[in-house]
């Protein structure tokens, strides 16, 4: 069944239709929030809050076909609210210096590398590379000025490449 049709049923108050949307979109929303949060527990808390908000606000959804983007925006807003509450979101231009091979030998992956970015930079990078959003869309979704978004993505991406460089395959000619 087409997602817009499922959203229509959920909008009409069909609980099982909303649970179907939860099944279809749960993984994406959790994945997004796990990259933004510092732990799986907080990510799942925020993912749950995202779906509860979606259930409450479903009546305000204008286009049923845009459900995915609308849900993602709720997830970003939920995360931003937590950041504002904990005063961690700063639009700083400074990306802290972290040695690329600092944790070599430990289990480092993308999520760990992302945690080394400041929250605002991480948000822009995740929405851009993880969600495939344009700079303009990221600026619109986050409320961060476009110029700052570009700067965050550029510097955050450079830092991620540096951090993840240690994981490039040996066949590239770079010894691990």
């Amino acid at each position, binding site marked *: 069944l087409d997602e817009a049709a499922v959203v229509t049923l959920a909008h009409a108050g069909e*609980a099982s239709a*909303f*649970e179907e949307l*939860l*099944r279809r979109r*749960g*993984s*994406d929303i*959790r*994945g997004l929030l*796990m*990259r933004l949060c510092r732990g*799986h527990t907080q*990510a*799942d808390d925020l*993912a*749950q809050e995202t*779906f*509860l908000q979606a*259930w*409450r606000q479903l009546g305000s959804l204008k286009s049923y076909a845009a459900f995915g983007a609308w849900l993602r925006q709720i997830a970003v807003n939920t995360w931003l609210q937590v950041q504002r509450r904990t005063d961690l979101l700063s639009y700083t231009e400074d990306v802290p210096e972290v040695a690329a091979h600092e944790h070599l030998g430990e289990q480092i*992956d*993308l*999520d760990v590398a992302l945690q080394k970015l400041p929250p605002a930079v991480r948000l822009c*990078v*995740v929405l*851009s*590379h*993880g969600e*495939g*959003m*344009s*700079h303009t869309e990221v600026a619109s979704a986050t409320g961060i000025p476009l110029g700052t978004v*570009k700067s965050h*993505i*550029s510097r955050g*991406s450079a830092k*991620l*490449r540096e951090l*993840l460089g240690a994981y490039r395959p040996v066949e590239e000619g770079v010894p691990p």
Partner: protein
Amino acid sequence: MNDDRDGELARWFATRKSAPDPQLFMARVTHALESERRGPRLPAISSLVVMICAAIVAAPYVADTLLALADSGLLAAADTLLRIPRG
């Protein structure tokens, strides 16, 4: 356009899409949604339960007190007082 010119970062993101324990998460959110749908009925029901329990616990003490009052004739006195016409 994003800044990932060679798609390297997009590949990193794409290979790490899944989140653990999807069934557990589903069950958790489904339960929260059910509670959400039930809405304010839950507090009303729990208040009612608390009141019934309190009444059951308090009933013997209330009965004892009434019997004691009756024995001491206070009930009769109160009854008399209530019957005095007020001018």
